[in-house]
């Protein structure tokens, strides 16, 4: 039997070997802000776990280097990732001295490198399998379900990040709510305003260049500057417009963050609506008019459905972008996961930064996968044009 070598597999194997054998697996700190001490995988894990993790990593390396079926690669990678996830929980228990509430254990570079290498292998195998949109979403649900199960089981409770969470459980969920509200709310507002604007731009050519130019210019303003620019006018409105302050409009806080995210969101929504509508076949439009559709019937029945996948792509861009940008809202008192990030930076407490950053990344990732699946479902395969 002939063995053939997979090029990406070699890189993954090298990364995994480095992460497992040379880089530190976990960091131990006496309390949350002192410098940590590195622990290798052998030191960090109880010996049984060391054996399990190393065996699975070795298996993955072998499977990765050789040209093996995608399903096998995917299965092995996930088994190894699961072992890694449970193992790091075991490391916390193993490294923390009994009765010590201050000591902190967190994953170190070796853990992250291993996770990255295994994730790369899984992602590569998954891409080659070309799963349908539904399967991708099911897969995502399974991964999220696994994370949720591990979290609720208490396996990770000894980890520094979860200790950080435990001491702020209330504010965590409040900020999570604000984060999601900011990201989704500004997206909803941008969709409600942006799609009609896009339709208007499509119909009125002169408006198109002007409006898209302005929106483009807004996109180039750095986000912190945009928040700053908005403080003055919103503050003025709060003071001078009766009732404005009562519904939460103020110079700082959620209002300017919301407005800024909304403004950033407009360009992708408007531009994609314009591009989508422009892509509707000219003959279809001409026929629609010629057989007696009113402008409104043509818009709703022909143009919008045909432009929908492109508009959805704009919404995807905005959602992922907003989930990320909403972190910055914390700088002006807008709340969200950014609160933990900036507090953590201020206190040089890395775990607190991660408490804000990890859920944000997870959220953005989830949104991207779900919307990509939606877009693929909404885009029919009409590319095949047959001739007589």
């Amino acid at each position, binding site marked *: 039997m002939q063995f053939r070598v997979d090029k990406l597999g070699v890189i993954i194997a090298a990364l995994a070997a480095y992460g497992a054998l040379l880089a530190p697996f976990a960091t131990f700190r006496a309390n949350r802000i002192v410098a940590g001490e590195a622990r290798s995988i052998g030191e960090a894990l109880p010996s049984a776990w060391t054996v399990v993790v190393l065996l699975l990593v070795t298996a993955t390396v072998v499977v990765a280097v050789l040209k093996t079926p995608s399903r096998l690669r995917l299965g092995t990678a996930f088994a190894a990732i699961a072992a890694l996830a449970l193992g790091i929980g075991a490391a916390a228990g193993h490294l923390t001295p009994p009765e010590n509430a201050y000591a902190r254990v967190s994953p170190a570079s070796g853990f992250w490198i291993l996770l990255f290498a295994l994730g790369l292998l899984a992602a590569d195998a998954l891409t080659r399998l070309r799963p349908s949109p539904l399967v991708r979403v099911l897969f995502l649900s399974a991964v999220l379900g696994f994370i949720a199960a591990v979290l609720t089981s208490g396996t990770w409770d000894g980890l520094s990040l979860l200790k950080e969470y435990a001491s702020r459980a209330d504010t965590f969920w409040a900020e999570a709510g604000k984060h999601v509200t900011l990201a989704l709310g500004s997206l909803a507002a941008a969709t409600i305003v942006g799609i009609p604007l896009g339709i208007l731009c499509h119909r009125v050519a002169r408006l198109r260049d002007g409006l898209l130019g302005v929106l483009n210019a807004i996109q180039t303003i750095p986000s912190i500057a945009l928040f700053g620019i908005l403080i003055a006018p919103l503050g003025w409105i709060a003071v001078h417009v009766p009732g404005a302050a009562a519904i939460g409009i103020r110079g700082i806080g959620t209002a300017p963050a919301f407005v800024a995210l909304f403004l950033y969101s407009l360009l992708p929504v408007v531009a994609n609506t314009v591009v989508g509508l422009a892509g509707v076949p000219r*003959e*279809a439009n*001409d026929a*629609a008019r*010629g*057989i*007696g559709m009113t402008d409104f019937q043509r818009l709703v029945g022909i143009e919008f459905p045909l432009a929908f996948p492109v508009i959805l792509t704009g919404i995807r861009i905005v959602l992922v972008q907003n989930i990320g940008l909403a972190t910055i809202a914390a700088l002006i008192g807008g709340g969200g996961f950014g609160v933990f990030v900036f507090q953590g930076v201020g206190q040089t407490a890395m775990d607190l930064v991660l408490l804000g950053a990890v859920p944000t990344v997870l959220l953005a990732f989830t949104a991207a996968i779900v919307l990509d699946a939606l877009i693929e479902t909404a885009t029919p395969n*009409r590319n095949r044009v*047959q001739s*007589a």
Partner: protein
Amino acid sequence: MIEIEGITKRYGETTVVRDVSLTIAPRTVTVIVGTSGSGKTTLLRMINRLVEPTSGTIKLDGEDNRSLPDYELRRRIGYAIQGHGLFPHRTVAQNIATVPTLLGWDGARIEAKVTELLTLFQLDPVAFGPRYPHELSGGQQQRVGVARALAAEPKVLLMDEPFGALDPIIRAKAQDDLLAIQKHFETTIVLVTHDMEEAFHLADRIAVMDKGEVVQYATPAEMLVKPATAFVESLIGAGERPFRLLAIETVADAVEPGAAEGEAIASAATQREALSTLLWTGRKALPVIGPDGALIGKVSLDGLVQRAAGPT
């Protein structure tokens, strides 16, 4: 009946259609021909008000076409274009059902109409109804486009180069099918083309356009015998004239008494086909059989040669 009276269309300084007047008899096929850019499409689109004329009026059965909202007018007039213009996100059945749905027909009536039309256009309703346009061949798409235009049983059907995207064999078949359908529904058809062959094949009357003006409006035979201008003559093609003349008449009109040897030709065939057979087989005459298959006489080479001669 379509009465076009003194229609002019200007875009800014340029006059695209200049003072055109035509009367189109009901249940006939009128073909508008001319070179590219001569204003054919613009003239056609003024009939259903996709283009609003600068001056002049158009009446349908005596009624000004501006007497009702444009979209209501268009629902009464069939419209089929080159490249068919089918809606890619709707099935064949949904495409055909578009106008009946706009008109608020009930579901059973729409379904019956779709089935009738698909059958008429030789597309199996069960197999083709649920398909999407991209799953059809070009010829099938074109047929669905015409079926959609006819779904609400319009008295008038406007067609803008409907067969322009088809290859020659499928195009000839589509033209014959169109004539059969026109007889079946007694539709008044106005068709735009730049293909003279197509015009002579389909037309009861031909309108030749040149630089926005109709320079001649006549039956094919009149046009061949008496082209109004040098432009019309060049469009017909001097070398083609005798053959076009024979092509627009049937063998039935050229039957002579007497008998002939060899394989017979049907009286419904064109005289051009008879001539072609005579030349190819090297015979002097062909026996002619009527629609019932009975021998009704002969068609001779000499007879056809006389018929193909122009006025002296």
